[in-house]
């Protein structure tokens, strides 16, 4: 990367009205190199004495302890620094009537010295790469502005993404620019050079060689990268005695072991939901998480598509202990405790004549019959999916049942494992710990991962690498940790190697179906970071080799072709090696249901504790990502914290309550009781959250929080569930009710939507397939649209929108609330993170929010005051709400300065630099989709975050209203390009960020005037309705009613 023109592109756009911004911009004339230099010399943040302190503000104490992510600099934390003085001066100047004359000083243009080939200044470039994630790799197209990756999109040609993305992929670009990343090699916390590390690695290797590598251990997570695997193998041949251990905290061994149990060998299962008419998920969130879930979600949603009343839909049954995205989408959802799910599986197997037997709860019985019948009626077109956290037995049973139903080869197929080295991770880690205790381990190389934080607590991994006071020695002589952050584990290791982000390195990974995908860097490492492979190579025989060469060599070897360069270019262009997906493998069952040992069950009145990866921070690796921390979790709508999720009934029993705070209230701050959970002779203190739809007697402890050394954003958020997670109860622990004790304290949780009742209003139209067939227009019958004559300006000509008429249709039948659109929007539109405190005040900035409603819920919220039966297993629906772009926009009429007005294409424009911040528009917006910069939420200081900004979108400053613009920057660019060719803008040429990210194709944008456009066709459907249409605001964004396809048998009962 080199200097280049238009430094504003780096600084991001800013609100002229903010002198602070101007000041920043002036200093900001920097280029990548400069920024990098700055970063590498960076020595942490300086703090300032705050004005509250001086002014003796009563809230001062509170303010001191306020949590603010670095991405959203605390408004309170550095109060009277230079910026604020500038602002104050500017203000006083203005009062003196002078600031009008204050002209901004010179700006400079910094062109390249030698401009890179093929780069056109001001035009973004897109590169294909993949993000490795567990046993999958998500294919991506990354947008780059003058060498800065700014936006992640899905790669349409990649099997695992098909052009869509998930929250993790979207947010991963923020990880790249995370100011808290480890920035260099350290030894005992002291900064070291890379070469020094390589030397000592070589020294260690030399010792090791003598002992044939005895005592040399490597610990990794799941590895799907053929290159990395090959390299590890070569090390293992170099050091025959060395061992490779694996530990992936949030992925169960059940999947692997289940296959082994069923087929005698590790096999990978690939589903084809598109081909299934009836799907039964046994505690599996296959639409929301796990390998291939993006693709599965899309395939599934294609079977939920309705063009008219005659169309058919698939049917989804979900049996699960705690509500998931998949469960919320289900036509029938049966809450069962995790242990009962296994019983259910056994009972189902028995019903389908596979032998065995199990006693299941009585109310599940009629379910069983109905499902069994439904499955049998759809042999070969049905699909059973077992949850990652379910034990091997359940997986084995599911394999067996799928086989008997003849689904193998139609709705699913088996392949050789995607993991380079499938193994039982728990055992692998147990072995490592045992060996360390036995003093067999000399050198431990930890590649990625954070075992000190996330290993089962009975292993007490910290003690395995920490200096042992008693014995006065270290259990392991050399410990090397390679990771992106200087985290809990890094702290205890001798060496820490700062790991490069996947956008900074060459590499490869296999997708869920085995497709070999290429990781291609978009930017040279921002800091002195290195890839895991490089770190590993330091111990090998040729340390110097670059990732690039290694990758090319391996590909050359694996794909002998006449013209390798051609192949290489194509591979880079596609982001994958064509045709490298695994072929279906034959799998024959080697097990009988009868042979299964009796399932281990939880006593009826015991509480079942479940450990689940968090939908936002996963296993904790995203803890320092502000976007994900502030992202409302799909079902609970909690941000910035995890909470112990408890069913209303159980909560009732334990007398656990919430109450709504006065500041923020339903839309922000909820006080919930704090509980002590004593589990497997350990204890954790958590906030309790009553979660409708959760199985009774189940407490879910989401993993990934309570980090002690995550970084500015992620440290000390929520509670650490790993603290009570033991090797013998990795996913399900059980204990008597007495394990839970109320501490009597309350803890404020930031919940963006506490109120889940529609109050009898038709906000989210829903119906069943029969209803739809009987009355296709059901969605439009509640509200009558006012006739056009009812107008003060009757007879006045309406504004014609002759050319383009931008509009959006959101199919509620497809949306599963996965949140991808929310993060995509945040990334595309430079939306700031505001921090927990501000979310609790109801000031989060997301331009598109996903409302979650419980249909038929009698009570409005789930605090004990209003709580009833309807919350035990409420039908759940999601509704994405961006700006509705009303034609009769109520917001526009009340703006005193015309800062929001209509464009000739019917867009509800928001002109930030005209806005003076009266907030009248927001008051008058019936949908409350407008967002206001109550404080200076944007971070104008942190240089990394400037690199992140999308130069196509103005960066808003304090006191300015903002909202969804239908990604007007994309519209304008597409319009300009088509205008140059004098060609009409074709349908699909403009894709909004939310639409592009959506795995289920629920959001469609286009020109409503073009009868052939997808959006026009959708709007022509009878399911199409306007939100609050009776207000005559005439929204351009409309919704298609959600239709569920329940099984009549279960409905009748």
């Amino acid at each position: 990367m080199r200097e280049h023109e238009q430094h504003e592109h780096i600084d991001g756009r800013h609100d002229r009205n903010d002198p602070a911004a101007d000041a920043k911009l002036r200093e900001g004339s920097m280029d990548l190199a400069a920024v990098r230099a700055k970063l590498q010399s960076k020595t942490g943040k300086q703090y300032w004495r705050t004005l509250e302190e001086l002014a003796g503000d009563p809230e001062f104490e509170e303010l001191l302890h306020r949590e603010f992510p670095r991405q959203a600099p605390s408004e309170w934390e550095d109060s009277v620094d230079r910026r604020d003085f500038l602002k104050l001066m500017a203000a006083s100047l203005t009062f003196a009537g002078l600031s009008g004359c204050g002209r901004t000083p010179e700006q400079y243009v910094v062109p390249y010295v030698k401009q890179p080939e093929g780069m056109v200044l001001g035009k973004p470039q897109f590169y294909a790469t993949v993000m490795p994630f567990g046993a999958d790799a998500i294919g991506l197209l990354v947008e780059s502005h003058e060498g800065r990756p700014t936006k992640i999109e899905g790669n349409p040609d990649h099997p695992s993404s098909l052009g869509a993305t998930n929250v993790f992929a979207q947010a991963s670009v923020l990880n790249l620019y995370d100011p808290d990343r480890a920035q260099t090699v350290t030894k005992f916390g002291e900064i070291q050079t890379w070469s020094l590390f390589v030397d000592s690695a070589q020294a260690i290797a030399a010792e090791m060689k003598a002992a044939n590598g005895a005592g040399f251990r490597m610990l990794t997570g799941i590895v799907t990268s053929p290159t990395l695997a090959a390299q590890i193998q070569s090390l293992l041949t170099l050091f025959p005695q060395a061992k490779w251990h694996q530990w992936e905290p949030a992925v169960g061994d059940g999947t692997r072991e289940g296959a082994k149990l069923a087929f005698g060998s590790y096999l990978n299962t690939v589903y084809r939901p598109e081909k299934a008419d009836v799907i039964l998920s046994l505690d599996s969130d296959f639409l929301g998480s796990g390998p291939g879930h993006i693709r599965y979600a899309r395939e599934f949603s294609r079977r939920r598509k309705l063009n008219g009343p005659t169309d058919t839909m698939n049917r989804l049954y979900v049996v699960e202990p705690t509500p998931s995205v998949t469960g919320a989408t289900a036509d029938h959802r049966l809450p069962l405790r995790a242990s009962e799910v296994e019983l259910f599986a056994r009972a189902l197997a028995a019903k389908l004549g596979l032998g065995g037997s199990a006693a299941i709860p009585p109310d599940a019985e009629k379910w069983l019959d109905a499902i069994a019948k439904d499955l049998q009626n759809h042999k070969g077109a049905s699909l059973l999916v077992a949850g990652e956290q379910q034990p091997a037995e359940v997986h084995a049973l599911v394999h067996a049942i799928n086989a008997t139903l003849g689904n193998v080869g139609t709705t699913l197929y088996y392949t050789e494992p995607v993991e380079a080295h499938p193994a039982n991770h728990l055992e692998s880690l147990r072995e490592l710990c045992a060996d360390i205790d036995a003093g067999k381990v000399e050198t431990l190389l930890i590649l990625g991962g954070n075992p000190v934080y996330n290993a089962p607590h009975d292993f007490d991994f910290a003690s395995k690498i920490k200096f042992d006071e008693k014995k006065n020695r270290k259990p392991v002589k050399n410990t090397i940790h390679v990771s992106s952050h200087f985290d809990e584990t890094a702290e205890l290791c001798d060496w820490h190697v700062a790991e490069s982000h996947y956008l900074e390195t060459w590499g490869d990974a296999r997708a869920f179906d085995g497709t070999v995908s290429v990781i291609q860097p978009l930017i040279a490492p921002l800091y002195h970071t290195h890839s895991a492979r490089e770190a590993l190579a330091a111990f090998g025989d040729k340390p110097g080799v670059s990732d690039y060469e290694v990758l090319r060599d391996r590909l050359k070897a694996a794909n002998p072709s006449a013209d390798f360069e051609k192949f290489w270019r194509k591979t880079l262009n596609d982001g994958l090696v064509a045709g490298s997906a695994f072929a279906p493998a034959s799998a024959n069952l080697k097990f009988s249901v009868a042979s299964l040992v009796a399932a281990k069950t939880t006593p009826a009145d015991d509480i079942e504790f479940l450990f689940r990866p968090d939908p936002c921070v996963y296993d904790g690796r995203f803890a320092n990502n502000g976007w994900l921390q502030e992202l409302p979790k799909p079902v609970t709508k909690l941000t910035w914290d995890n909470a112990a999720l408890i069913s209303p009934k159980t909560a009732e029993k334990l007398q656990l309550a919430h109450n709504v705070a006065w500041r923020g209230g339903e839309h922000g701050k909820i006080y919930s009781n704090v509980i002590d959970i004593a589990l497997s002779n350990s204890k954790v203190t958590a906030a309790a959250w009553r979660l409708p739809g959760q199985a009774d007697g189940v407490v879910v402890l989401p993993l990934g929080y309570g980090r002690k050394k995550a970084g500015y954003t992620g440290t000390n958020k929520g509670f650490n569930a790993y603290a009570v997670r033991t090797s013998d109860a990795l996913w399900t622990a059980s204990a008597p009710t007495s394990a839970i004790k109320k501490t009597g304290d309350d803890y404020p949780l930031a919940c963006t939507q506490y109120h889940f009742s529609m109050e009898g209003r038709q906000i989210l139209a829903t119906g069943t397939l029969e209803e739809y067939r009987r009355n296709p227009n059901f969605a439009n019958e509640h509200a009558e649209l006012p006739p056009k004559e009812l107008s003060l300006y009757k007879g006045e000509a309406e504004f014609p929108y002759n050319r383009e008429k931008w509009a959006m249709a959101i199919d509620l039948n497809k949306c599963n609330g996965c949140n991808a659109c929310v993060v995509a929007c945040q990334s595309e539109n430079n939306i700031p993170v505001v921090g927990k405190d501000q979310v609790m005040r109801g000031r989060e900035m997301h331009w598109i929010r996903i409302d979650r409603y419980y249909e038929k819920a009698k009570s409005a919220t789930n605090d004990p005051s209003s709580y009833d039966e309807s919350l035990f297993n409420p039908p759940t629906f999601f509704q994405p709400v961006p700006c509705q772009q009303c034609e009769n926009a109520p917001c526009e009429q009340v703006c005193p300065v015309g800062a929001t007005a209509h464009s000739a294409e019917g867009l509800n424009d928001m002109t930030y630099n005209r806005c003076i911040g009266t907030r009248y528009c927001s008051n008058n917006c019936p949908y409350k989709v407008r967002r206001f910069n109550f404080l200076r939420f944007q971070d104008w200081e942190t240089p990394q975050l400037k690199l992140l900004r999308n130069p196509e979108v103005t960066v808003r400053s304090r006191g300015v209203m903002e909202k969804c613009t239908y990604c007007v920057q994309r519209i304008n660019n597409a319009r300009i390009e088509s205008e140059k060719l004098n060609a009409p803008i074709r349908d699909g040429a403009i894709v909004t960020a939310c639409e592009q990210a959506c795995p289920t194709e629920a959001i469609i944008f286009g020109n409503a005037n073009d009868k052939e456009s997808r959006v026009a066709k959708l709007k022509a459907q009878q399911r199409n309705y306007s939100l609050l249409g009776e207000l005559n605001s005439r929204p351009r964004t409309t919704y298609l009613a959600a239709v569920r396809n329940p099984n009549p048998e279960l409905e009748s009962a």
Partner: protein
Amino acid sequence: MHLHRSHIYGVMGEFGDPEELIHAVQKIREAGYRRLDAYAPFPVEGLSEALGLKRNLVPAITLLGGLGGGLTGFLFQVWANVSSYPINIGGRPLNSWPAFIPVTFELTILGASLAAVFGMLALNGLPQPHHPVFNVHRFSHASSDRFFVCIESRDPKFHLADTARFLQSLHAHHVSEVSDD
């Protein structure tokens, strides 16, 4: 003679209450004096009639002010919205005249009020901090509890001695000459 006159502004008589004043004024006018003025601590009913004041421009000026303010207000709004920079605001017609009424109304009032006040001041020739009548020692009571009438030297019938005597005859409590320097 002429020189001598220029030093005299007029002759002033002082009276105890409104009735005396009005009576005096009537007498003075009957006597044919025209250039005279009366001074009172508050508006005395019937005094203006006695002085024969008729023309009053204030209402006319006020009306003009009001019309001016209102018309400019309305026309400006229409111009700004329809021709200066037409913008589609919430689908409302460019000339949404009903929405322009409030501002028009306020500006009408503003124009009228300004006209009324400044018109009045202008017609009264205020500000005028210096005035010959202030030379009269007892005139400070004119703003408290005494009533004065002043026959000005400009009056063709004016003759210092005679006029003074004439005032005496009207039972003025004091009669004093009003010098003009």
